[in-house]
Structures are given as C-alpha cells and as structure tokens.
C-alpha cells in the first residue's frame, strides 16, 4: 500500500522543480495542471513506485508532451507571448547568475539536452535516474549534459552584441 502522506510530501517539496521541467513544453498554468495530474496518478497507484521522483518526472514528461501535441496550434500562438515573458526562475538578489540569461540560455539548447540539464541541476537527479527516465544510456545522458554546459558557458562568455548604426 502506498504511503500517501510521505509520497505527497516528497512531491510537494519538489513541485517547483517538476513544474520547471514541464515548462519546457508547456506554459505555466498547463505545467501546473500536468504536475497536479501526475500527483493524482501517483496517489492512485496501488503500490508505490521504487523511485517516486523518477516516476513523477517520467509521468510529467509523457503528459507534457501529449498535452503539447494536442494543443500545438494554441501553443504556437501562446509561444509568441511567452517568449517575451520570463517565467522559469525567481529573480533574487542572491542568484549567482541572472535569471533571464539562464532562461534564455536554456531555451537556446536542443530539447534533448535542455531536459537533462533541468533534471540534473534543479531536479537533483543522478545520471542513472535521468538515463532511466529518458531510456538512454548513462554515457549518452552524461555526454549530452556536458555538451549543454559547454554551450551555455560559451554563450555566457560571449560579449554582448550591440547594434551599431
């Protein structure tokens, strides 16, 4: 029997990270809905999964991709609005990196690299868990991760391009 209280607390503690993960495919409110539905699905399980957090990431991923597929036309319209809006990270003075820059850099990554960075950095998942969720080898997960970090660092170190007239 699933320990509802423990599992719910585990997910609620990580809800912002899960929502951040879902935001790669969806807008904020849809991402919240997908995580909420995934939590409901988790609570309906007769037996708790071995790794509830990895289970949640996988469920959120599948649901977010399905949701994005269904509402692709609406999403394209909303993407234009969402592109101008930064909604992934909180702006705080103790941030070591600018939230807007980080979001922009993440959005510039290929999707298969970006989701690994999000799971690794903010989801605090190990490469074995990430490989399990994405059904790829650990080496592939690690290679994509290092490639993503290299691209982001490279982008960050580039001087700002200003238009000269």
């Amino acid at each position, binding site marked *: 029997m699933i320990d*509802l209280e423990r599992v719910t607390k585990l997910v609620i503690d990580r809800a*912002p990270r899960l929502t951040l993960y879902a935001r790669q495919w969806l807008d904020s409110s849809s991402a919240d809905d997908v995580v909420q539905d995934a939590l*409901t*699905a988790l609570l309906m399980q007769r037996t708790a999964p071995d790794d509830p957090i990895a289970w949640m990431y996988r469920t959120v991923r599948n649901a977010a991709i399905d949701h994005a597929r269904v509402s692709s036309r609406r999403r394209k319209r909303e993407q234009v609005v969402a592109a101008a809006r930064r909604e992934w990270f909180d702006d705080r003075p103790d941030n070591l990196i600018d939230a807007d820059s*980080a979001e922009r850099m993440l959005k510039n990554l290929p999707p298969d690299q970006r989701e690994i960075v999000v799971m690794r950095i903010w989801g605090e998942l190990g490469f074995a868990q990430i490989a399990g969720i994405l059904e790829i080898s650990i080496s592939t997960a690690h290679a994509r991760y290092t490639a993503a970090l290299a691209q982001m*660092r490279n982008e*960050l170190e580039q001087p700002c391009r200003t238009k000269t007239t």
Partner: protein
Amino acid sequence: MSHEDNLNPADREFEDALRSLSPKTARIDPVAAAFCAGERSARRTTRRWQAVAAVMVLALVSSWLIPSFDRATTSPHLVVQLQSPDSAAVVPAVDAHSVLAMQEAIRDRGLSGLPRAEIPTVRAFDAEDMF
C-alpha cells in the same frame, strides 16, 4: 570514476551558479490531488462492479434465450403410435351368451333383452339307429 564527478572545475562552478536559481513556485494542491485520486479510484471500482454485473446479466439472458431459440427452431415432435394386431388394446368380442353379457342385457332391457337361445334341432330318432 563515475559520471557523477566527471566534470571539470569550470563546469562545476557553472553548475553551482545555475543551482543558485530557484524555479518559480508551482500551484499544486495536494488536497485536491488526494480527493481526485480517491474519487477516480472509487469510480474505477464502481465500473468494475458494473462490468461484472453486466456480464452476469448477459450470461443469464443468453442462457434463457438460447434454449427458447432451440425450441422455436426445431420441428414439433410427431408422436406416432403403432399398434400391433395382437395388441392388448384389441378387445375381443364378448359372447352374447356369456353371463356378463346376459347380466348387462337384463339390466338394460329386461328379460326381453336376453338373446335367443340357440337350441339345437332334434334329430329324428329311429329304433333302428340303436341296433
């Protein structure tokens, strides 16, 4: 060396910088999720019972329909009774001179109902016949 610590110092520093960012808060309602999970589970159980009941009703109806269908499609039984000539059903004619027949005749029609006595004819007798 595992993949977990297979990063150069610059990458580690960059990881730490990214980790300092906090994802925006999510609007997740655990109570609503638990309520919804309970409701869906109950609905699933109810549907299971409904399915079982539907199968049972179907089985009952089909078990009732199939024999009656058989009855309707098969031709009615035609019973032919054959009687052998020496069957016990053939009642032998009662002799009018039997006691039973005569009792019945008296009861129904009185003495006049009695059959005529069949008295043998008296043969002519000659003394010569004796010697």
